[in-house]
């Protein structure tokens, strides 16, 4: 006997069973909401294919094609890749020679600075987290609390002395300075997250390995680390997202050679007296979004698992 199905069930809403299983109906709902939520980003991406006067057109032009005449021509723009090529050259200055804007350098800076500082924080922070977790000190909680508090400081409190310190030490505008700063910036979160991961591991396996004669180093690398891969991935993604887009420190502490994309973007906003170059800016942001988007996408499963594992205490 066939079970009766309502129209809702055909659309994918399941009623009788499956507490957390939902069907295509949920996809429809979530898709709609996600799309609305994503719309501002989508508009940035669309703008990156427009020339300046189309970006500022009234009425706005949303569509790259008219879909065989379905869309009135006033809403259709002619897509161009000009902005993307302009990112790396200064072709948009009328009459001027094609000149490098240095954005290739800025992209490299962003990647190098964010990547190395997040990795450095991950290495140092994981070691510290393991130390805090396995060799509790007297007053462990106090130390941890101080470490966490440093993350909560308004950046502005420390920025003045850091500027002075960097000036004296000759670190202003250098890679080591900003990388070290970002490492410190990422450390509290890393330590705190990784510690809760190490706390959850069973000590029996480690003790068994010690009894079998493994050295402490071997226990750490062969037994502990493989069990916290999700945590490492989640911490990496969080750190990357925060560091990648950091603006204030970068604005004040990077030089012309070490400038990161957000700072350079901020300077490109002015556009040399001809107003904001929307298309160009959109192209920069679109390009800038791609790496962190891909990393997040591929580590997404770890991200969710990582947050759960690391923060929910049973």
């Amino acid at each position: 006997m066939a079970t009766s199905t309502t129209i809702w069930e055909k659309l994918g809403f399941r009623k009788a069973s499956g507490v957390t299983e939902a069907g295509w109906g949920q996809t429809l709902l979530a898709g709609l909401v996600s799309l609305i939520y994503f719309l501002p980003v989508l508009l940035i991406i669309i703008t990156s294919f427009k020339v300046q006067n189309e970006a500022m057109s009234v009425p706005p032009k949303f569509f790259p094609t008219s879909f065989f005449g379905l869309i009135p021509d006033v809403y259709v723009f002619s897509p161009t890749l000009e902005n993307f090529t302009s990112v790396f050259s200064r072709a948009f200055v009328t009459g001027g020679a094609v000149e490098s804007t240095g954005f290739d350098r800025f992209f490299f800076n962003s990647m190098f600075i964010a990547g190395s500082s997040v990795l450095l924080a991950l290495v140092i922070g994981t070691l510290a987290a393991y130390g805090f977790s396995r060799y509790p000190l007297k007053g462990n909680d106090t130390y941890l609390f101080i470490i966490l508090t440093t993350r909560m400081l308004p950046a502005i409190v420390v920025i003045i002395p850091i500027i002075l310190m960097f000036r004296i030490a000759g670190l202003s505008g250098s890679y080591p300075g900003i990388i070290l700063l970002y490492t410190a910036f990422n450390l509290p979160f890393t330590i705190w997250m990784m510690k809760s991961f190490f706390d959850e591991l069973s000590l029996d396996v480690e003790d068994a390995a010690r009894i079998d004669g493994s050295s402490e180093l071997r226990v750490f690398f062969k037994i502990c680390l493989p069990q916290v891969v999700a945590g490492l991935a989640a911490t990496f993604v969080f750190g990357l997202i925060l560091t990648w887009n950091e603006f204030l420190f970068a604005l004040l502490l990077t030089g012309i050679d070490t400038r990161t994309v957000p700072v350079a973007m901020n300077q490109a906003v002015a556009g040399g007296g001809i107003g904001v170059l929307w298309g160009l800016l959109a192209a920069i942001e679109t390009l800038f979004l791609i790496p962190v988007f891909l990393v997040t996408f591929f580590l997404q499963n770890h991200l969710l698992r990582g947050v759960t594992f690391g923060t929910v205490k049973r």
Partner: protein
Amino acid sequence: MTMTATQQQTPGFLNVAPDNWKLAIAVGLAVSILAASLFPASASFWVVGAMVAMVAASIVVNAFRKRYYGGLLVSPAIAVLFVMNIFPLLWSLGLSFFAYQSSQQSMRFIGLANYSRLLTDDLKAPELWGNLTNTAMFTVLTVSAQMIVGFLLAVMFAKQFPLRRYLLILVLTPMMLSVVAVGVFFSYYYDPTFGLISQSIKAWNGEQFILFSNKTGAVAGIVFADAWMWSPFVMLLVLAGLVSVPKYLYEAASIDRVGSWRRFWTITFPYIRGLLMLALLFRTIEAFKMADLIILLTKGGNDTMTISYHVIRIANEQNKTSEGAALSYLLLFVVIVLTNLYLYIANRRSREN
């Protein structure tokens, strides 16, 4: 452990040994103070740095000899945090007692004058209060918007459905944008002439819409952009809590015919409470620091100045370094009070359970 072993492990105070960290600290302090008073700042900095390195090295050697692995593992992190956070923090505290402007080289000790001026000056005190109330308003508005939107998004994504993975990443994207782009493009969307909002309102009533024409509009615009950007963060934390609720509890609840309201408060909420509090804390602190979006959207116009922006202005644009330091210490004080309040509530809850 025998007496001799103890003696071997703890060298006498005056023994020059690589693991005699007490001596190292004493020598380091003496040399640093000497250097600071004798040499110019740039030279003494390196001397102090070398002394710190020496002390650190002796502590490390000591720890290693005593097989004190915990300390060894933690020390690199402590070192980095000390150099980049705690040391500047102390420096900044010291600066706040001086009259110092980075544009000039003079430095004069004035005690608490910076603080008293900020709190009592006829011009500065009302401005500070105005900025503080603005900050509080932004904090309350953005954080509550983020919590609500983030929570609703999380509830939507807490189920398993086709394409979930791809839709989730779409919602996470705003968090990955740089704040510069968000600021600039929201001003583009808010633009009275070609902005989308103005244009759609114009199509309806024929009038141009200037969002930033009054304070309400300006605040709404800033809050909307900030909430849009950071709700995904709250969503991620809440989602993590939601998916950690064991499925069998919901099954038991449906067998027990528990209503959805009660089901949420007795089953779901206890699992996300901790994460909600965490999200609340993180976002409150971030909101308290909010400056960049305001710089990009209104430049503090329409009475949208926040305390953080105020500090940046004083310290960076007006070069009143030490006054900025004093102000940031006031700000730090507020943050510490907030954090402790949170910890107090969190601890009381955990004691209850």
